[in-house]
């Protein structure tokens, strides 16, 4: 089964804080060379982390649901810097 999560995220309401992502990868080299499993690319429920094929991971936080999964699941390397978006920005749930 193929699932396009972008279609799901399209239904959500966001106020994106352009140029100020609230999550960042601390050291890209750790993802590329040390992390074999790269579970963030599979388990992030908004598919914010993408495996580039050359070992690198790119992170785009625009669709982030602010759950915290990526931070906690990276317990082998603690390579995710995770803050809440600035007040009023990020996901804005209509129903919750």
């Amino acid at each position, binding site marked *: *089964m193929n*699932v396009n*999560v972008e279609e*799901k*995220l399209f*239904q*959500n309401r966001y*106020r994106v804080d352009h140029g100020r992502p609230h999550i960042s990868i601390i050291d890209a080299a750790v993802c590329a060379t040390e992390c074999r*499993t790269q*579970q963030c690319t*599979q*388990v992030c*429920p*908004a*598919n914010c982390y993408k495996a580039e094929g050359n070992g690198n991971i790119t992170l785009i936080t625009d669709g982030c*649901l*602010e*759950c*915290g*999964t990526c*931070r*906690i*699941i990276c*317990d082998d390397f*603690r390579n995710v810097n*995770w*803050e*809440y*978006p*600035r*007040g*009023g920005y*990020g*996901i*804005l*749930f*209509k*129903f*919750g």
Partner: protein
Amino acid sequence: MEKFDAIVVGAGPSGNAAAYTLAKAGLSVIQIERGEYPGSKNVQGAILYSDALEKIIPEFRDEAPLERHIIEQRMWVLDDDSYIGTQYRSDAFNKAPYNRYTILRAQFDKWFSGKVSQAGALVICETTATDLIMDGSRVVGVRTDRENGDLFADVVILADGVNSLLAKKAGFHPELKPADVALAVKEILFLPQETVESRFNVKEGEGVVIEMLGKITKGMMGTGFLYTNNESVTIGVGCMLSDFKKERISPYLLLEQMKAHPAIKPLIEGGEMKEYTAHLIPEGGLKAMPQICGDGWMIVGDAGMFVNAVHREGSNLAMTTGRLAAETVIGLKQAGKEMKAPNLAAYRGKLDDSFVMKDLAKYKDMPGIFHANPQFFTTYPELVNQAAHTMLTVDGVDKKTKEREIVRSFTRSRSLFGLAGDAFKMWRAMR
């Protein structure tokens, strides 16, 4: 610089319960919330248990936005294309005052926050708390992302949810472990009210919940659910993050496959998806609970791991911990005592006397047992479905032979020793 009696961080059920209780007793309270409005960052299934809210706002039924009161509870154990289950429906659940309701958290939290403002608390939205302000080892305030946004108070109540960043930054508790949280994803699917009612065999205002276990979680420790709202249904699935990490399965794929299950698909057919959400649920239980108070601070709700995963209860524990934390502060204030750790420890005593700690103590071994025994989520759902299939297929084979075949299927999979051991483990964990 103005100093408040209390700062409450977060406007979910625990924060609102705390802020409301404090403000109603006449204390000066400021509550900060990072969302555009209270509820806009909050996610839940969602079932509201009346009792916890009734103890805070007795007349809530007259004004709160509630969806349906629950008259029927189904429990399904699923195999790939079947399920076996129980259901309990009673007209007693149709007599007011109702015991539980489905709610939509964005609307419900907004209402609850309105009550907090009416009670006299200052509620500030679109403001993210970034750090606790310390004086030595004592919390004296909260730094926010607003300009000149430092706030000071005698006590800070941390109701900032499962991620609980403030307490972590201050070193009050370590990062959550993947084995102590479940990741749940869900969708809300809109259907005409009559369709909801005819599909679930209910009348206006009446609702059904279905809790599910088995093949839908692909061997991971977790459950699924389907709840009826007025003009929508909510469908979701959640599993332990440690299992997601190991299996590397995408949660949205799990949800899509669950929606395609032959027992579930007809119930949601034609539903228009209007929101997709994800949330972590702190399910580590009593053994994973952090320190819950110290000099000038207290933790309530999800931030303190106050969730009864076995019974799918969380918001009622949140509201109760929020209320009890507030009552502790009010008591100290009236007695003229300082908000220091030894005095605030009365909060722990109140929790111990309530259902919160009693239930968490009762099930303290449950998370460990489920982690160590995945057969409860894999082998048994399969076996009971196969057993039902064998007994209910009329094919000329006599019933005695069928019974023997079923017993053999159980002992083959788990051995007599394993079966007895599993029964003992469950008994010990549940008693």
